[in-house]
C-alpha cells in the first residue's frame, strides 16, 4: 500500500470512465427505452411516456420464450454440473502430472469460433449422423425421430458452450482441497459415497456456486443455440429481443424484455447466493 491520495483515482479514471459511459449509461438508457411510447418508431422518434404497460404487454406476447430461457438454462446448468464435476474432480485430485494438459483441453474448445462450434453440432446431431443412428437402433428414438430442431439439441449445445465455465471454478476449489481430509474420512470408516457427501462436496461448494452462476447467466441470454439448432418452437427470449431490435424495430418492447431478463437473473442470483454462501468469484 502506497501513499499518494490522487494516484489510485488517476489509475482508475480512464477505465471507470469507459465503464460509466458504455456500460452504466447504456443500462439507464435501456431502462428508459423500455418506457417509451410503443406507438413511436425509429424514423418518427420515440416519446417518453413512462409506458409501464410495455412490461405486461411484453410478457403477454413473449412469456413463453422468457420462461423457456430459464427452463433451458436451468437444465443446461444442471447438466453442466453433473458432467463438469467428475471431470474437475479427476483433474484436481487424480490427474497428477497430466493436470495442466487436461486443463488446456478444457479451455481449448474456446479457441475455435463459438458459432462454428455450434454449427458443428448440426453435423453431430444430423438426421443421417452416427448419434441419431445409434439412438434409433437402441429404440431410444423413433425410426423417424430427430434430435436437430428439438429442445434436446438446444440444451445439448447450451451445456456444451458453457461447460468450461463450470469446470474451471470447480477445479479451482477442488484443487485447494487437502487430500489428507479425504484420507482421514476413509480411515474413519466413511464409505466413498459418504466421503463425497460429507467432505468433498461441502468443501467444493464455492466452486459449485461460481460455476452455476457462470453457466446459468450467459445461458439464459443465449440465442445462438436456439437459432442454429432449434426452430421457432425452441426460441428463447434472446431470439425475441434480437428480432425486436434488429428486425421488427420495436425498441420499447425489446428493451422491456432485456430489462425483464436482467431483473429475473438478478433475483435468482441473489436468492442463490443467499442460500449457498461464499463463491469462488471472491
Amino acid at each position, binding site marked *: 500500500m502506497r501513499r*499518494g*491520495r490522487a494516484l*489510485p483515482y488517476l489509475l482508475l479514471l480512464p477505465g471507470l470512465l469507459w465503464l460509466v459511459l458504455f456500460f452504466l449509461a447504456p443500462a439507464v*438508457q435501456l431502462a428508459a427505452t423500455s418506457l417509451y411510447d410503443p406507438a413511436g418508431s425509429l424514423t418518427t422518434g420515440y416519446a417518453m411516456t413512462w409506458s409501464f404497460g410495455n412490461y405486461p404487454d411484453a410478457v403477454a406476447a413473449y412469456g413463453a420464450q422468457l420462461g423457456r430461457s430459464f427452463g433451458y438454462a436451468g437444465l443446461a446448468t444442471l447438466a453442466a454440473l453433473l458432467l463438469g464435476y467428475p471431470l474437475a474432480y479427476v483433474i484436481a485430485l487424480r490427474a497428477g502430472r497430466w493436470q495442466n494438459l487436461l486443463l488446456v483441453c478444457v479451455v481449448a474448445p474456446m479457441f*475455435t469460433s463459438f458459432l462454428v462450434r455450434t454449427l458443428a*453440432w448440426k453435423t*453431430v446431431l444430423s438426421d443421417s*449422423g452416427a448419434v441419431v443412428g445409434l439412438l434409433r437402433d437402441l429404440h431410444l428414438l423413433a425410426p423417424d425421430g430427430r434430435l436437430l430442431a428439438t429442445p434436446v439439441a438446444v440444451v445439448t449445445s447450451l451445456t456444451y458452450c458453457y461447460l468450461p465455465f463450470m469446470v474451471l471454478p470447480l477445479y479451482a476449489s477442488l484443487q485447494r482441497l487437502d487430500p489428507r481430509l479425504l484420507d482421514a474420512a476413509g480411515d474413519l470408516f466413511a464409505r466413498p459415497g459418504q466421503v463425497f457427501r460429507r467432505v468433498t462436496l461441502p468443501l467444493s461448494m464455492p466452486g459449485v456456486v461460481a460455476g452455476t452462476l457462470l453457466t446459468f447467466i*450467459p445461458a439464459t441470454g443465449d440465442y445462438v443455440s436456439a437459432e442454429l439448432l432449434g426452430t421457432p418452437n425452441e426460441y428463447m427470449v434472446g431470439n425475441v429481443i434480437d428480432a425486436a431490435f434488429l428486425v421488427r424495430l420495436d425498441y420499447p418492447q425489446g428493451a422491456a424484455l432485456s430489462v425483464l431478463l436482467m431483473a429475473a437473473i438478478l433475483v435468482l442470483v441473489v436468492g442463490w447466493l443467499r442460500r449457498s454462501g461464499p463463491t469462488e468469484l471472491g
Partner: protein
Amino acid sequence: MGSRFGRFVADHWVLAVAALVLGYLLLPVAVVAGLSFNQPSSRLSYDFAEFTLDNWRDPCAGPGMCAAVLRSVQIGFVATAVSTVLGTLMAFALVRHRFRGRAVVDLLVLAPVATPEVVLGTSLLALLVAAGIPQGFWTVVIAHVMFCVSFVVVTVRARLSGMDTRLEEAAVDLYASEWQAFRRITLPLVLPGIVAAALLAFSLSFDDFVVTNFNSGTTVTFPMYVWGASQRGIPPQVNVVGTAMFAVALLMLAATRRARPAGARRGGKAR
C-alpha cells in the same frame, strides 16, 4: 477390504465419466477440423461428403470471408490494446492502493461479467440510437473494450495480488528509485499476467457475436459473416478458419508457457 473395492470402483467410474465428458468437450473441435477437409454435397448440407484439400489451398474462395476475418483481427488488436491498458491500470489501483469507493469500483468492474451479452448489446444500441451515433467499426471497438476491461482487471489482479511485495521493498532498500523498482522488478513479474489478459481480451473480441450483432451496423466481422452465411449455407472454408484459429491459439499458449521464467511460475501458484 470392502471399502477398498468400493474405492476402486468409485475411482474408475469417475475416470470413465471424466473421459467421456472430455470427449464431449472436444468433439465439436474435431468435427470442425474434419469438416475443413470436406467437399459438401450441397450448400445447406452439414454432413461429411468427400475429402478435399481445396478449402485449405484457397481459404479465401468464399466471397467476403477473408475481409471479415481481417476486420475481426483489426478490431481485436485495437480493443485488446485499449482494454489491456485500461484494465491493467485499474488492477494496480485495486491491488496496490487503499481508497474510498473501492466497493463501488469492484461492483462496476464485475457487473459486465454478470450481465448476459444480449443485455449488454441492446443497452449500448439503445444509447447509440438515442445519441444519434451511427454504428460501425468504432462502435464495435467501444463495445468490445467495455466487456474486455473486466476480464483484464480480473486476470491482472490475480497475478498482482499473488506477488511478493518484499521484492520491490528490497529494490527500494537497495537505492532503486520507485520508478526503477517498478520498471525492473514489478513490471517483469506482472508481465505474464498482462500478456495472459491481452490474449484473453483478443480471443473474446475476435469471437464475439452477440454484442457485435447489435452494434456493428454494416461492419462484417468473422462471427457476423458466419451468422449471415448460416442462413444461406456455410462455405466449408469457415471450418478452415475455425481450425486455424485453434492451432494458432494452441501455439501461442505453448509459447507463453515456455517464455515464463521459473520464478514467475512459482509466484503464480502462491495464491
